[in-house]
């Protein structure tokens, strides 16, 4: 390990929340293809899912889409693009889709790492690769993507306030100190995925996943990622009113 890397690692360890992660850029784009499964909850994303799966397929061998009862042919589109598509018979919600994906991947016993990825194309594949590098080099069980560790992402003030509120509640209930709770990009090692069972079917699963991963006491980090807010993802994203649902789902069980 050259002194530069050591310096970065020390900076990282001192920081905890870390701003300068940058594991040495490995050159092989398919370095994670064999041991990593990408899990994508899919619900009515026909216009983007083929592109998202296509991009991922350049880097990963195993892409699992959980079609959550889409009515627009998203499932067929994802399948044509090369994803393994599991179909929920009825719409259950994103949390339920993630849990189905975890159980499928863990059940096959072939994956070392699981990447959760949103179907709407707002995540960068490069971020996922770097998060995997970090997880493998530092033996982390969980890496959460966070859009608030640097200022590349501008969600707009209203969404920022909403997301920060949810983060605050999440930190309050989970005891972890995250900067971003509702970010769909995560790296989860197989043993961590095996240890959690999500029961929040709807959007509150994002807090639940933090809570349950936190309870496993496995090592975790946040990693700065950029969210590509397009007009499409803005229109599809969670409404501010939905954060009321999230809070009620979390508090009233």
């Amino acid at each position: 390990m050259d002194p530069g890397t050591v310096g970065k690692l020390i900076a990282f360890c001192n920081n905890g929340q870390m701003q300068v992660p940058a594991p040495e850029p490995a050159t092989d784009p398919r370095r994670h293809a064999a041991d990593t499964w990408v899990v994508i909850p899919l619900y009515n994303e026909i216009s983007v899912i083929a592109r998202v799966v296509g991009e991922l397929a350049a880097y990963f061998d195993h892409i699992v889409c959980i079609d959550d009862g889409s009515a627009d042919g998203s499932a067929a589109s994802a399948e044509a693009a090369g994803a393994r598509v599991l179909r929920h018979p009825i719409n259950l919600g994103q949390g339920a889709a993630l849990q189905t994906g975890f159980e499928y991947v863990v059940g096959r016993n072939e994956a070392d790492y699981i990447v959760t990825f949103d179907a709407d194309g707002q995540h960068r594949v490069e971020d996922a690769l770097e998060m995997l590098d970090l997880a493998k080099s530092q033996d982390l069980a969980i890496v959460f993507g966070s859009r608030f560790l640097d200022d590349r992402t501008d969600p707009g003030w209203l969404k920022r306030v909403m997301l920060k509120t949810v983060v605050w509640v999440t930190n309050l209930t989970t005891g972890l100190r995250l900067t971003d709770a509702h970010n769909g990009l995560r790296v989860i090692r197989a043993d961590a995925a095996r240890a959690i069972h999500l029961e929040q079917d709807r959007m509150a699963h994002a807090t639940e996943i933090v809570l349950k991963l936190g309870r496993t006491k496995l090592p975790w980090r946040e990693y700065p990622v950029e969210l590509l807010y397009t007009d499409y993802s803005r229109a599809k994203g969670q409404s501010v009113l939905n954060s009321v649902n999230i809070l009620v789902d979390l508090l009233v069980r």
Partner: protein
Amino acid sequence: MNVMWIQLLLVVGVITVGLFLARPTGGDSHLALRRLFMAAFVIVAILSILFPQWLSWLANLIGVGRGADLLLYALVLAFLVFVATTYRRNVATNRKLTLLARQITLAQAATEDSASIHRPHEGTSNDDAAH
């Protein structure tokens, strides 16, 4: 001073319903409570039909003007209990539905996976079909 009693009863009742909502799901004790509640409801209903003045007597005792007002308060509480139990049962039913749907999904996936594993074999040993 008498007014305090009904206020106390109602506030305690509402808080109990709220706590009940936040309590983790209990199985059989939950059902037993519902049944006891129903039994008490029937007895009170019969009593108040047979002895209407009894309701007014009780109302006056705890600081409510008329028996009809007491009935209304009781109805509000009973409605809250109904909302709470219905919500909880709905959550429990959804939970089961999710598990069922997930099992269907995973079973279907397992079938597809084993089919895609066996398909190459069918290609190499076509004489299997001849047997």
